[in-house]
């Protein structure tokens, strides 16, 4: 599969970038390595010819439908922040394989507790090795002026507790694992 599934604001698109030939991501990458960008894309099966315009290697505009559209993009892993006409869109690549692995990981290794937002660990109420009931508060996360109880999604044994009270954590950080 040379296309990618992109998600932003609850909308999803399958996007495949292509040069004039042959249609594969490797080809697209080769094109870019030679300093040219792909010349058309498939967006949900719709063919969209376009031209990428760069300044010092950095994408500054995309020409599509005969019009040049200023755009900025910055990537962080599987996330891309795209600025267009005063708005910012956060676009994520959805990884089918990663999702499969995630499901596998859960079955194999129990359930991970993930920080729903960035914040500070205010309290840890369990220790590694503790047996917890489903719904039991495992730790308390403080974001600004609010405290959020992080609860065990299932009964089991706490096999990992990576953070101490006072630690700052990012959104998505694995806080604990319960098997």
């Amino acid at each position, binding site marked *: 599969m040379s296309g990618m599934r992109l998600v932003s604001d609850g909308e999803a698109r399958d996007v495949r970038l292509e040069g004039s030939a042959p249609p594969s991501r490797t080809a697209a990458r080769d094109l870019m390595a030679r300093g040219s960008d792909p010349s058309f*894309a498939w967006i949900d099966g719709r063919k969209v010819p376009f031209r990428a315009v760069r300044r010092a290697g950095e994408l500054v505009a995309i020409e599509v439908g005969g019009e040049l559209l200023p755009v900025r993009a*910055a*990537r962080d892993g599987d996330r891309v*922040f795209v600025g*267009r006409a005063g708005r910012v*869109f956060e676009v994520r690549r959805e990884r089918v394989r990663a999702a499969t692995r995630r499901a596998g990981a859960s079955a194999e290794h129990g359930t991970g507790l993930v920080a729903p937002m960035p914040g500070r660990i205010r309290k840890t109420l369990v220790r590694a090795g503790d047996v917890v009931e489903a719904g039991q508060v495992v730790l308390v996360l403080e974001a600004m002026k609010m405290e959020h109880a992080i609860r065990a999604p299932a009964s089991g044994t706490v096999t990992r507790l990576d953070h101490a009270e006072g630690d700052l954590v990012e959104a998505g950080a694995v806080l604990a694992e319960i098997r």
Partner: protein
Amino acid sequence: MSSRARQPIRHLLVANRGEIAVRVFRTAREMGIGTVAVFAEDDAAAVHVERADRAFPLGAGPAAVTYLSIPKILHAAKSAGADAIHPGYGFLAENAEFARAVEDAGLVWVGPAASAIEEMGDKVRSRARMRDAGVPVVPGSERGSDNAGLAAEAARLGFPVIVKASAGGGGKGMALVGSAGELPAALAEARRIAAAAFGDDAVYLEKHVEPARHVEFQVFGDRSGHVVHLFERECSVQRRHQKIVEETPSPALDPALRSAMGRAAIEAAAAVGYVGAGTVEFLLDADRRFYFLEMNTRLQVEHPITEATLGVDLVRWQLEVAGGADLPGGLLDGGVAPRGHAIELRLYAEDPVEFLPRSGTLLGWSEPAGPGVRVDSGVERGSVVNLEYDPLLAKLVVHAEDRAAAIERARRALAEWSVLGVETNAPVLEAVLDSPGFRSGEYATDLVRKLARTGRPPAPDEVWLAAALALAESGDAGGAEQPGSDPWSALQRFRSGEGPP
């Protein structure tokens, strides 16, 4: 105080970070004053450090042991040979102990006397003081008290009431309480936050007045005892009890009300022998009655809108008055008059729905410019936004001939701002500028809560294409890229070494 000899400042240490440190350095440099930055370890690459002539470390750890450490800051001042300290706002700006320690160390304190900070810093005491001086105050609990006493006071005032920290401002520890049943939990939470933020868990109650506007007056005093007001700032656009948009003049004031409030502001400042820049905050109810809320004994975040309409530099005045100079004679004769209209938009790293702070790296940052546009920022592309500190990234200040033009200028400039990598409140700021309430000038502190939540149009093709190009650029997840905040992307990279999927 007036007997004190003039002692012009030569080397100024700014005990702060971010946009306010940068802003103070700019004026100091224009005055030929040497500039000294201090920084916590996680700020070694911060913008404010590079905008100063010299920079001294405060060590690693949370703000409590860096920017809030009086001994470390005084030590840095000594190492740098600084002769004055400007506290900015937040951190130690309203800490009387710090003001006293600075003066005891033989340094110039750019701010009011420690006694004035104490007088105004204790909100319960300042309310009593203002009432005695004939300035109207919002009905509230009259003494710091235990929970039982406050419950009785709440019953007397009638719900809803607001719980406020006696020792602080900035909305910290503030909570709206709708009924007696909610009071004990609200008091406990407010005390906990107040203790953590200000080292004092005293709280008090105020009657909740709504709809109401927040209108504040800039005041300025010198060591010869002159106190003037520099007109008002309308601060009613708030979320979480914190301002996000300010404007001057206030659409709510007419000349008679402006004059009455200005006189009350001067009385409030004069009552505590105020020296330097300060702000007297008032609540204005639907019947256009005004009440003293509190006095901020420091430079205010939103001071640039006053600078814009008056054509003055308040930090320059702060530094000159701290060095012993009197306020300019022309000013005392009522010689300044505001011109045009100014609006400030505060850009915060926070989500635009729940207003929770966001952290991350600013992967893209490009500021607006052009006629009538000023940006005070403390970040650049690549800056790391850390949850340890206030999430204010920058302030956009626009100035135009009238209010309508200022609103259009603010919209134009906001749309020029490109911030990638960290979510900001820009959509909220845009919605405020577009709202009928703001446009008409008929708004109160509930404006943000009442904003219509309109869905955004879906991303156009060029956005999906730009994202796909960026993702294709450095190969797939196995390539050399920054780790994402998604723990599963890290997991996958780790596992891809185990063999083909």
